[in-house]
């Protein structure tokens, strides 16, 4: 492939890459992207169009004026945002440039313009696909720039004949340059301080609206999402936090409901309070009681159309990029930016499964709370009767709650088929007719039955633990993990009760290895690119400092001859490798001839004498000019240096042989020069 053809191919690919970026950013729809791509492809055969436009009197000017007017109208009246209008203008300019190109520079300029497509898409996408778009753009862009540079310079020097065969070696170099640029980009990216204040927010990412996490949830709301395998949350346990084994029954608590009207659960008039940051920069949600194991983890929550934060109960401390959070009296936590993708860190005190707690930690509910959590709609008597029958003979409320939970989880069947079969109330139909349902029915039935036997209870919506991704070391929570369970106030504490058979970790075949790898990549993209923050930079710097401090005594110990010698070995290996690379890259010394003739020994001695006084010939200075300069500084040297310079010139240019007598005389002059230079 010739160099100009390669440049053309690379430029077109860059533009198509930019179109993909616009698509990822939502600035071009699928149809729009296809149309623009087709136009870009068609511009490969641009000559007929270009010539026709050029043949029209003032054709190109007319097009530009029309487009300017249309663009102004678009930005003012049609476009959803100014960015949309500008992007449409950019796309037009790009396609126009491709069709009207005449020179290499026009082709290259199209590549430059496509960079702004990436710029436009960057604030609007979070997709990991943007990473690949960027990589492709970088490789193609570097290849284009190099090719254009060589072609343009050769054209300027009118030596294009020397270009054949250049392409392959340049391609290899461009790939090396791309790798180096990626490395340099990574270094800059992680080091440049994040001082952004988000003063100019662009169009925000609007997430899909997911039912089940609003203030009012109809029974069966989870039905439509329980088959959706989209990953909505990734939870990365901090070092020291137990992994997937010990956290088998972990749930990510979202919103709690206290009121049931027979068909829907609502959070009715919860006491909400705004919570500000503590002096440590985090939100202190509740006090540490020392009753359960601690867990710290980082959550990446995709936009769900809800302002709820999901976390393992009981949340002690929370770090999220917002000024305030809202906490209600049922422990639900929310933020004021529901449409944005969220990243937050949480510390939780997990619940002990054995309910064993000391009496002094008990919290009693007041009358209003009891009324609130024992509220029930008018229910068929047989529901209460069933609850009493199941709990008959229980020694306390804890045992009664366990019996009811076991009753539901063992006698009823989990299903996602939620078709109504009777006009009865949903809970009644679930308990007496269908005897199967999804987690919402199980939770609602348990809450109603608990309340009917006088145990305060509430329904909680959230997510199950999710799958453990061993390649990224995090829990992968999908929409299908959406779950409902019950919290009952037992023995002075709110306890989690999950009657749904689905509440147990599922043993079904997990995702494929490739899926896990890709998701781990996505997680790293979010963790290290999208959400890389000043706090992360400080933490990374702190880790580097710690590592340095740890190495210092180990090096000292190794230097003393005892302890671990690996650090010194590592330093030696690096030094030897660098030395070898430097040695081998020194090059073809043998092929170079020495410049100029050898300096006669008498003149070399004279130069050495003067060098001790700081006088050395400058590059491009003749012996005569040097002599004049020396005499200005050391006037006493004028006579011997003049003679030495004169003889040097005779030898240097005339290749005159010097006899022994003259040599002895010159040695005397060198001695005189030494003496004069000392005394001057």
């Amino acid at each position, binding site marked *: 492939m010739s160099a100009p053809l390669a440049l053309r191919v690379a430029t077109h690919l860059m533009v198509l890459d930019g179109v993909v970026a616009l698509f990822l950013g939502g600035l071009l729809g699928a149809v729009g992207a296809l149309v623009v791509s087709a136009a870009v492809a068609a511009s490969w055969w641009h000559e007929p169009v270009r010539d026709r436009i050029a043949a029209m009197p003032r054709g190109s000017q007319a097009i530009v004026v029309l487009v300017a007017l249309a663009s102004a109208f678009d930005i003012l009246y049609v476009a959803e945002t100014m960015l949309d209008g500008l992007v449409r203008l950019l796309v037009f300019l790009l396609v126009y440039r491709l069709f009207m190109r005449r020179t290499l520079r026009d082709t290259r300029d199209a590549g430059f313009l496509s960079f702004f497509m*990436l710029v436009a898409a960057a604030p609007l996408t979070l997709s990991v696909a943007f990473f690949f778009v960027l990589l492709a753009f970088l490789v193609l862009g570097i290849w284009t720039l190099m090719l254009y540079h060589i072609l343009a310079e050769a054209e300027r*020097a009118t030596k294009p004949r020397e270009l054949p065969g*250049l392409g392959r070696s340049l391609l290899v170099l461009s790939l090396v*340059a791309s790798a180096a640029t990626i490395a340099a980009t990574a270094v800059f990216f992680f080091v440049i301080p994040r001082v952004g204040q988000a003063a100019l927010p662009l169009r925000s990412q609007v997430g899909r609206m997911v039912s089940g996490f609003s203030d009012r949830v109809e029974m069966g709301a989870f039905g439509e999402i329980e088959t959706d395998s989209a990953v909505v949350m990734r939870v990365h346990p901090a070092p020291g936090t137990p992994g997937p084994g010990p956290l088998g029954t972990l749930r990510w608590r979202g919103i709690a409901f206290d009121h049931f009207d027979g068909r829907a659960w609502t959070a009715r008039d919860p006491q909400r309070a705004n919570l500000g940051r503590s002096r440590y920069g985090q939100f202190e949600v509740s006090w540490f009681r020392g009753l359960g194991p601690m867990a710290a983890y980082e959550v990446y929550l995709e936009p769900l159309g809800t302002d709820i934060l999901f976390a393992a109960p009981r949340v002690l401390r929370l770090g999220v990029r917002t000024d305030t959070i809202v906490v209600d009296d049922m422990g639900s936590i929310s933020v004021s930016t529901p449409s944005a993708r969220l990243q937050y860190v949480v510390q939780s005190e997990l619940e002990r499964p054995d309910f064993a707690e000391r009496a002094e930690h008990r919290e009693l509910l007041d009358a209003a709370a009891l009324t609130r959590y024992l509220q029930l709609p008018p229910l068929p008597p047989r529901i209460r009767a069933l609850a009493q029958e199941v709990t008959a003979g229980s020694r306390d409320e804890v045992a009664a709650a366990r019996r009811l939970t076991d009753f539901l989880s063992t006698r009823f069947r989990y299903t996602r088929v939620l078709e109504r079969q009777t006009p009865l109330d949903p809970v009644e139909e679930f308990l007496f007719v269908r005897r199967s349902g999804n987690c919402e029915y199980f939770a609602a039935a348990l809450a109603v039955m608990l309340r009917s036997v006088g145990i305060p209870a509430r329904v909680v919506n959230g997510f199950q633990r999710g799958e453990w991704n061993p390649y990224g070391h995090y829990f992968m929570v999908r929409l299908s993990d959406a779950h409902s369970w019950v919290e009952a106030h037992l023995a002075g504490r709110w306890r989690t009760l999950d009657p749904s058979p689905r509440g147990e970790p599922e043993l079904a075949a997990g995702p494929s290895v490739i899926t896990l790898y890709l998701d781990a990549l996505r997680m790293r993209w979010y963790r290290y690119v999208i959400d890389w923050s000043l706090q992360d930079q400080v933490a990374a710097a702190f880790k580097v400092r710690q590592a340095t401090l740890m190495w210092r005594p180990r090096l000292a110990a190794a230097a003393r001859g005892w302890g671990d010698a690996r650090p010194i070995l590592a330093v030696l290996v690096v030094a030897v490798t660098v030395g070898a690379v430097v040695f081998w890259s*020194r*090059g073809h010394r043998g*092929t170079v001839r020495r410049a100029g003739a050898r300096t006669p020994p008498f003149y070399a001695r004279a130069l050495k004498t003067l060098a001790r006084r700081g006088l050395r010939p400058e590059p491009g200075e003749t012996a005569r000019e040097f002599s004049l300069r020396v005499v200005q500084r050391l006037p006493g040297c004028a006579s011997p240096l003049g003679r030495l310079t004169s003889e040097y010139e005779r030898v240097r240019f*005339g290749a005159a042989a010097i006899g022994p007598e003259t040599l002895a005389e010159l040695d005397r002059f060198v001695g005189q020069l030494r003496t004069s230079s000392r005394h001057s």
Partner: protein
Amino acid sequence: MTIRGVSWRLAVWPYRTIWPTRDGWWCLVAALGLGFGAINTGTNLLYLLVCMLLGLIVVSGILSERSLRGLRFTAVVPDDVFAGRPAPLCARVVNRKRWSTSYSVTIEALGPDGAETRVYLPRLLSGEERLVTWETTFAARGPHPFPAIRISTKFPFGLFLKAGHVPLRAEILVFPSVSGLGPELRRTVGTAAPAGIRRRGRGHDLYNLRDYRPGDDPRLIHWRSSAKTGALTVRELEAETAVDTRLVLEGRSGDADAVERGLSRAASFVVHLIRAGAAVELLGPGVFVPLGRGLAHQRRLLTALALWTPAAAGPARGGPRSSIREIRVRLG
């Protein structure tokens, strides 16, 4: 710092100038604008694009240095360089890097008269050697430094122009300017030969007229005679005669121009006489070149004239005077 220390520092970190091209300015402005956008929106992907541009700039610096680094220049000095005449100068450039190729290197030679010569090398493979030639004119005789060479490149992206000067420790000895001798002078030099050796040859004076024969140089046709006789007539030239000559430089004045004119005339005599086959001796204040003939001797004579300085002049040196023709040249 010792000389060795300076060399080491220059080898590791040679002096370079770097300046953005027009595209480079656009790149910097784009990076600045994007940086502003990144800070104001707090968008990490904008930061990523800014960092990509910064990375490009860094890699551009490394690769351009890689292109310029490891190029070794050797001056190739011509044998005879005369003041006031264009001289072909050469520099041999070798890529001494073991593996890497140097791309897109421009070599600029700046002559003493300020004229600039540019040579563009799209590629110089590892170990490859190129000879770069250009013409330059030295105004004055004497030793001159080899013209400075500037190497520059916009490689790899055309965003920045990086340049550096290559010190070439070579000197060129420029002989005094040589001009053709006028007819009178030539006659003085040429007719000094003894009578009876006048013969046909390739000189300048007319020897005879004869009819044109095929193969004759058309430039020698004597048109006036041809017109008169109606047949083509050509000139036959007289062979130049040469006798052994002693050039004596004499007289001294403070007028530097007069000295230079005298030296130039002496050099012209030297070239004319040696070319005519004469043996020439040079004698003057502080200078003596014994009798000799041939091109090597011509070089010795011209070197002596090129290096002669009034300051170094002393009493005329030389051996026993032989009885040969003397041409005296006044230095002022």
